[in-house]
């Protein structure tokens, strides 16, 4: 079967070529410094079954203080793009700058905190020692490690659980601990790969609100991978819609709600309009060939 609906080529090329939709918001953002600047990034994995094009000619600019969501079906390369930003994968073509330096230099300078889908706490360490682990590796003195651990565990509402082991905490608490761990060394950029994907909706809403407040207070730049349209619209200042085979960006949607937004905005007309644009973008990019 051929593609059910032909993609809106104009948007697509615009996103591919410049990825700077001509809107007021992004023009304003462009004035400030770029946290992520990807130009012509492609990544092809060599597998036993042949080459897999995970990313094809991705152009993306993320400004300081942005909250950018990557949304798209499985296999569209959103996690891969994030891993490229984190220098966990190397692109086969194109350039990527993070905070003005190469992704590798940014990683070596510990400029970002990465939060995975799973909490990935080390099971033999207590919560406090898990949070202090990156600080140990980075050589912070012991009293500062302890002070930071307490501060960030408090921030994610986990004070009192310092001496517990990960298995003694619920999934949502574990994920919060992993967020505290990523925040502990105060990186300006947070990379979050479906951090709440495994949690139920109630916990998820709650954590999303907490995350927004954190982002608003700290002024960090957040890159967020998600499957959920409402989550993306609720959290983001910019939504990057991606499409699989090959992984590419098909639309970049600005999302100009105030920074201190609450869950109520989900009922507004504007919210629904943006959600619709995301949905239609996803639909147009999705091939029903298989």
């Amino acid at each position: 079967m051929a593609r059910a609906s032909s993609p809106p080529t104009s948007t697509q090329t615009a996103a591919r070529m410049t990825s700077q939709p001509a809107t007021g918001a992004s023009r304003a953002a462009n004035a400030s410094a770029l946290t992520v600047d990807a130009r012509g990034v492609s990544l092809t994995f060599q597998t036993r079954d042949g080459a897999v094009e995970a990313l094809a000619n991705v152009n993306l600019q993320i400004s300081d203080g942005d909250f950018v969501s990557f949304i798209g079906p499985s296999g569209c390369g959103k996690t891969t793009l994030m891993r490229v930003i984190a220098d966990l994968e190397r692109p086969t073509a194109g350039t990527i700058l993070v905070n003005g330096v190469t992704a590798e230099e940014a990683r070596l300078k510990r400029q970002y905190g990465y939060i995975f889908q799973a909490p990935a706490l080390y099971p033999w360490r207590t919560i406090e020692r898990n949070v202090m682990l990156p600080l140990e590796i980075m050589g912070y003195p012991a009293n500062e490690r302890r002070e930071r651990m307490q501060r960030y565990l408090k921030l994610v509402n986990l004070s009192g659980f310092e001496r517990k082991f990960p298995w003694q905490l619920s999934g949502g608490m574990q994920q919060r601990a992993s967020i505290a761990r990523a925040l502990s060394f105060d990186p300006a950029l947070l990379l979050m790969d479906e951090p709440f994907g495994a949690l139920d909706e109630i916990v998820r809403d709650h954590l999303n609100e907490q995350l927004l407040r954190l982002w608003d207070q700290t002024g960090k730049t957040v890159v967020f991978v998600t499957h959920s349209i409402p989550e993306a619209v609720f959290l983001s200042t910019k939504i990057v819609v991606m499409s699989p085979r090959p992984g590419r960006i098909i639309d970049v949607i600005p999302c100009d709600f105030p920074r201190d937004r609450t869950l109520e905005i989900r009922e507004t007309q504007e919210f629904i309009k943006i959600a619709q644009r995301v949905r239609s973008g996803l639909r147009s990019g999705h091939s029903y060939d298989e």
Partner: protein
Amino acid sequence: MTSSAIALPRVSSRPTAWLSQHTPILAVVAVLFVLWYLAAFFMNAPLVRDAFERNEVKYTFSELVAGTMEAQRPVVPAPHQVAAELYDSIFGYPLDSRRNLAYHAWVTLSATVVGFAIGAIFGIVLAILIVHLRTLEKSLLPWIICSQMVPILAIAPIIIVVFGAIGIRGLFPKSIISAYLCFFPVTIGMVKGLTSPDPIQLDLMRTWSANKLQVLWKLRWPASIPFLFASLKVSVTISLVGAIVAELPTGAQAGIGARLLTGSYYGQTVQIWAALVCAAVIATVLIAIIDLIAKWTARRMGATP
């Protein structure tokens, strides 16, 4: 304070609870003893029967049974004979006497412990090297596997002679043979253990730009601890076997191996069995010690109770 004060008498006043908890284990042990006695009877019966017939003595069945249980040189000694021999040879002589089994057990045990320590450390170091250097895995692993295919009985005399030629005798060459046997399970287990962390856990280390030593010490090593103890349990018994085997070609001066050898020279089956039981007890105790340390470590490392 109060809770333990209440709990203490409750535990001690309940021997029945202990009994009901351990009944299945006791039952299995009892069955094993019955089987052993039956084996002793059937294996020794022809011997005893021959002896009666040679002397042209009439015998009843109960005399036959009694004979099989008290034979001087039985094919299979009865459990109580082995127990009596164990008791006599441990408590019947001064501790430093050549006739004391405890003395021989100590000789073997010390070689075992030293060999086990050398083997475990060597095995761990080898595993760390193999995990970090891909070329080593390809170039070294085949040799390691080959080393384990050579029969230790062939290698042991060579090692003893070579060390003897440069003036090293006694405990150390035996420990080397024991280490030679026991490092292998540690290496295999630790290669598995050091590569056991999730890709995500390794990625995290990378995002923090941790160096290799930090990844090893803060991630790979703690992740491999369960594998370490599992392979240590295997290798400690092997190191005991290694120490016993190493005592055979030295002309059997001391050790459990020596007891086995002299026992077979003089047809002292009861002595052989006593030495074997002694070795089994040592192995059990060594494994129990490792198990205790493993459990303690697991608790420290937050294992689910």
